Structures are given as C-alpha cells and as structure tokens.
C-alpha cells in the first residue's frame, strides 16, 4: 500500500441492518481523494445510512449491526484499535438541518479544539487565530467578527450551516461528509454552500448526500447512484447524467421514479 492512497474511502461487502431491516446490501465503493462525490438515489435507498457509516455515527443506535470493511485512507475503521474520537476528528460531518450548538459563535468554532485538548488548554491567542482562520475560510469572518459572542442559534440558516462547516476546519479533517446540507436553505444559501464546497475541494475529500439531482450535477465530480440499499453505479458526474451505464440509473435521472 502506498503512502497516499488514491482512494479516501473504500468499502468492501458492507452490510448494515436496522434491527431486522437490511438497509445496505453488499456495498463496494471507492471514493477518490480530494474531489466531491455525491450519493444520489430515491428516499430510503440507504445513501444517508452509508454516509453515516463513514464516521461510525450510526452506532449510537444500539439496534444497528454493521458487517464488512470500510477503509478510510487505507485504515479499516472497524479495526478494534481504531479510536472513535480520532476517527471523528478526521472525518467531519455536516447535517441536514444546521445544528450549531446553543453556545456562542466563538465557542462553536473552538468546540472541537477544546474537546480534543482537554488536558492542555490552548492559549487565547491560538484559539482566536483558529476562529479567524476557520471563519475566513467559510466566508463568515467579515460579517461576524464583531459579534463572536452572540449565540450561534440566532444566526440566519445559511450562516448557521457555514458555521457548522467552519467548526470542522480547526480539527484539520481529511474528509467532510455532508448530509443534504442545503435542504433547509433557500436558493441563495444553497449557492453559497456550493461555492464553499468548491473552495474546500482539493484540500478535503467531500462526500455529499443529495436529493436534488440538479445539485449533484452542478456540484459534484463523481456520482454514486444507489437504489433499495444496493449500489448501482459510480461514474464521473458528466458521464452518469449524459450516458448512464445502468438502465435503472437512466430511469431515475429521467424522473421515471424517485
């Protein structure tokens, strides 16, 4: 295995059950490093479930059983020596509804730093620098720099979602998972988040779940199409939308079902 694996995420024979219901069936995907990959498919096809496997956050429900292998940057995350805390530090997640914590904007951004450095407290100037850097990267610094002590839950939804992305950055994640990050936003907000994704691309591997096929087409480099818990097709976006290999994909993107 080389030092820099070409694939950020690879899964082999991944199966997942919610109690008796099998939500993922033999998923084998290879997600490339440094690009935006979107997971598409109709409701209930398992795309969100798959995304939530990549940081093992599915496991907070005790009735979930997972089988198979997921390799992140060459390391199987189901190995017993994997630390969940470290895994989640390097795999950030953005949720469907913006969920900033009910604390100040400043504290939201440094939350990750604080929880991962419990023993040695970072100095105030380090934290200030981290906040400025993260908020600048998501384009919020100019608007928010004078009200960092306000509650984050009072911001506009678009700003909240950007803040949710910003709070991942100080932890220097390898991968950012996005679960329908724009579904609660209006047109302007959606555009802003997509532009932000383009800016982050390259430094981070981004995996985005989306219901919105137009968004997948606009904003992603590769697409993975899933149906009823099964993997159907993985192609570069341009190819998948123009020239799908699988008839089921063709039917879905034509809107025959969904």
């Amino acid at each position, binding site marked *: 295995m080389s030092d820099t694996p070409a694939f950020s995420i690879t899964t082999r024979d991944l199966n997942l059950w919610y109690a008796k219901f099998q939500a993922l069936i033999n998923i084998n995907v290879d997600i490339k490093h440094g690009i935006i990959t979107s997971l598409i498919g109709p409701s209930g096809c398992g795309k969100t479930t798959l995304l939530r496997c990549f940081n093992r956050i599915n496991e*907070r429900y*005790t009735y979930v059983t997972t089988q198979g292998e997921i390799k992140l940057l060459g390391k199987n995350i189901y190995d017993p020596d994997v630390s969940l805390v470290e*895994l*989640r530090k390097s795999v950030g997640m953005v*949720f469907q509804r913006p969920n900033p914590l009910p604390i100040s904007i400043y504290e939201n951004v440094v*939350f990750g730093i604080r*929880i991962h450095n419990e023993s040695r407290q970072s100095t105030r100037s380090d934290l200030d620098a981290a906040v400025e850097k993260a908020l600048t990267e998501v384009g919020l610094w100019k608007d928010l720099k004078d009200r960092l002590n306000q509650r984050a839950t009072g911001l506009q939804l678009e700003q909240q979602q950007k803040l949710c992305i910003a709070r991942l950055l100080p*932890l220097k994640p390898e991968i950012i998972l996005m679960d329908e990050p724009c579904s609660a936003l209006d047109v302007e907000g959606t555009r802003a988040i997509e532009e932000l994704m383009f800016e982050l691309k390259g430094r981070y591997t981004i995996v985005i779940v989306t219901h919105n096929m137009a968004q997948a087409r606009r904003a992603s480099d590769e697409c993975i199409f899933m149906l009823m818990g099964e993997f159907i097709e993985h192609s570069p976006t341009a190819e998948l939308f123009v020239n799908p290999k699988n008839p089921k994909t063709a039917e879905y993107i034509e809107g025959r079902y969904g």
Partner: protein
Amino acid sequence: MALPSLTGKSLRPARPLWAVCGEKMLELLIRFCGVSAIIFVLAIFFFVFKEAAPVLWSKNFNLTQFLCSPEWYPTSVSNVRYGVLALIVGTACVSGLAVFLAVPFSLGAAVFISEFCGPKLKEVLKIVIELLAAIPSVVWGFIGLTVTSKIVQQMTGAPVGVNILNGGIILALMCVPIIASISEDALKAVPDTYREAALALGATRWQIVYRVLLPAAKNGLLAAVLLGVGRAVGETMAVLMATGHAVNIPHGILDSVRTLTANIAAELGEAPAQSEHYRILFLTGILLFFITFVINVTADFVVRGIRQK
C-alpha cells in the same frame, strides 16, 4: 348576477341554537378554570392575612422581635415572647442541607437515566423514581424517626439521632425523585441534533454531557432544583418527626432544631382560636408564603437572565 351577500341569507344553514349556546358555556367554563388558580391563591392569602392581621397592632407584638429573637415562649404565663429566628434558622439549615445532598444525586441520576443507561434499565429506574415520589411524607417521617435516626446516632455518636443531619437526609430523599424526574425531562428535551453535532466532532459521552447538555438544559435543570427547594422549605410532617422539634439555634449539624412548618403543624391545634398565639402562627404562615415567593421570583429572574445571554 349579484354575489351572495354575507349579511343577508347565509350561504349555509346556521348552526342550531343549542350548539352555539353550548360552545359559549364551554368557553366560559374553561375561562373560569383558568382564572380560578388566581382566585384560589388570592383567597388563601387573604384568609391567612385576615387571621394574622390583628396581632400586628397588638401591644405584645414587635416585628423586630418577631424576626430577630430566638426566644419562642408563646404560652409563658409571665413573659410571652414570640421570636421565630430559631425556626427560620432551623428551616434554612434543614432545607439547605437537604438541597445540598439532593442536587448532586438527582442531577447525576437524571444524566445517567437520559444519557448512559440502556432502554430497559431506563424504564425500571423511571418507575422506581416515580414510586419514590409517591411515598407519603408521614412514612418518610416514620423512617426518619425510627431508622435513619439510629444510624445517624451510631455513625456520629450524637446524643440524639433526630437532628439537622437526620432531617436533611430524609428531606433529601424526598427531594431526589422530584428533582431527578424533572431534570430528566429537561435533558430529554434537548434536541438530539445537538448530541449528534458534538458526537460527530469526536466528543466523548461525558464531554457531551457537560459541554452541550448541561448548558443547553440549564433553565430546566434550574427549575427542577428550585422545585426541590420549594419542597424542602414547605415539607412539614417528615421534618416534624425527624428533626427533634427543639426550638434552638443550632451550633452544628448534630443539633436538634424546629422548622417554621413543623411549628405551625404542632401548635396550631393547641392554640385557642383567635388568641394571640393563634394569630402569630398565621403570621408565620405568611412568612413562609413570603419565603417561597422570594425564591420563585429570584428563580424567574435568574432564568430570564440566562435566556438573554
């Protein structure tokens, strides 16, 4: 073609008279239910004040003496003195100790139930805590008098087992189920998205509890603690039986005391109606009213202060 007029013949048949009247009656009834809470509180206050008021102008009574003297000799033949300081201190000590013991336990229990334990254990614990809340206070007093007082005596070597420590323990046991179940509700009400957000950032369960849940639920938790304080201040029967009932400014937690509530319960039946002693006891009731009122108002301000932040 003319549009149907809204004032003239209506478009659909009018509702029958009884339905219209019935609805009005129902509305009136509900309105009365809502207002009755205010009426009852005012009526109680008025009655208690009416019984107590005449003593305020009596020559034997002196408000400073009433509040600041520890000498409570309401039935003395030669020199009647009504000083409730010892009773106020007694109430403060017993309920203070009870809250001090109960708060960490009940918050711990609430956090465990809502965040750490499995679904089956959770059900069992919730039922048991509800049972604990349903034990009548006289039974608690009985336990305080016969069981814990002996233990307290053995463990500490105190001359009498019925003292502040004993009363505080019993009262704490009575407060725990209330504080725990309300705190648990407050924690449950914290949106799950906050937990997921913190978890996805790599927080451990413990970090989620003290960095996310406690700040997010602090209003509810404060309300729970204050209900506990209210219970501790107002509880009568158990403290009457468990604290020794001695009018005495305590010098340590192993001294016996008497509380305001226990004093009223024990003496009102003996005091001749309309006598000075009787009226003074009602005045003590007003004092209790005032204490709980101050606690509630403070709580309200604190909660509002937190909200604005």
